[in-house]
């Protein structure tokens, strides 16, 4: 366990990025649990390694150490989406989703969610871009499923208010997942 911080250290350390070892040890079990539920068995173990390698590649560019669990679960969720896309043969009955930047779902709402306070932003992105269950979002935010649901819904409400109805609808993509993000936000 890490030693307890003194008060002045806590005030300085609120947003500091911890050494990767601490971050990894704190979140590895939750990430593996999430991946096992999504992918099962060997695929989960492969994705586990790739999740933390990706986190490591980006780690020295982090500007603060807040919401790191949400961040790493976002990476894991993105891998699950990629893995599902690779695993499914392309069917003509289901329209293929546009791929931008390897993370289409997030790219579609990133510019909207950027306006939100961090917790609501994390909840909205994990719920609507990555389709995480509220249990998983609660894990990510270190809160309860009910609090996660409230954060997501107040994030959506805030987006709706700030975008003045019709303008917001124009910004929300309708091509991807027809009727889904649109219906939830509208």
């Amino acid at each position: 366990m890490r030693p307890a911080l003194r008060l002045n250290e806590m005030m300085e350390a609120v947003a500091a990025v911890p050494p990767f070892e601490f971050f990894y040890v704190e979140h590895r079990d939750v990430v593996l649990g999430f991946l096992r539920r999504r992918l099962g068995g060997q695929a989960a173990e492969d994705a586990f390694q790739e999740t933390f390698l990706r986190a490591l590649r980006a780690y020295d560019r982090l500007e603060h150490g807040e919401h790191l669990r949400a961040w790493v679960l976002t990476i894991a969720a993105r891998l699950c989406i990629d893995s599902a896309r690779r695993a499914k043969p392309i069917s003509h009955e289901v329209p293929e989703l546009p791929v931008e930047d390897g993370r289409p779902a997030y790219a579609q709402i990133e510019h909207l969610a950027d306006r939100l306070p961090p917790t609501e932003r994390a909840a909205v992105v994990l719920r609507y871009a990555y389709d995480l269950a509220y249990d998983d979002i609660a894990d990510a935010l270190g809160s309860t499923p009910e609090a996660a649901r409230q954060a997501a819904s107040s994030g959506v409400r805030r987006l709706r208010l700030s975008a003045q109805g019709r303008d917001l609808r124009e910004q929300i993509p309708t091509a991807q997942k027809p009727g889904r993000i649109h219906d939830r936000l509208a």
Partner: protein
Amino acid sequence: MTVSPDLDRRFREAAAAEHLLDVGFDVIDSPIGPLLVAATDRGLARIFFDPEPEHHLERLATTFGPRVLRSATTVDAVHRQLDEYFEGTRSSFALDVDLRGAAPFAQQVLDELARVPYGHTTTYGTLAAKVGAPRAARAVGTVMNRNPIPIVLPCHRVIGSNGSLTGYGGGLDVKEKLLRLEGALL
């Protein structure tokens, strides 16, 4: 959901193999107690007599970068050479060192220290004279006291001008043990 030791080890090895770490470290056993050994891509950076990672990782991250991870492979060569040293089969280390974070004077003194041969001792005053500051024996003592890589940079071979062992970061008993191992003390 607990990450198995095997999965954990595979991730740590992959992280090191891809050179994604600012600092890799491990805790190794030795006849003078467990040692925390840390290395960067440039070379061996730290040896701590206090093996508790929680006491050192924040500072390592500040000096070298936040991607600090326990990974045995990053300190393999150091581990092997230390084993040989303690077995009495190695009298000099063939290791690059990373002295980032040390002041220029300290670097100069540590460079000179590295030349003090196995089984010999020198004094603080002699070392001071060798770096061109013959009156700086006390400053040299301070550098020895803060030596980031004891054992490999052999501050245990530096003693008082009256032949007393003076002090040692790992404790005087350790200094005595190392000098006996090297045959410098009977």
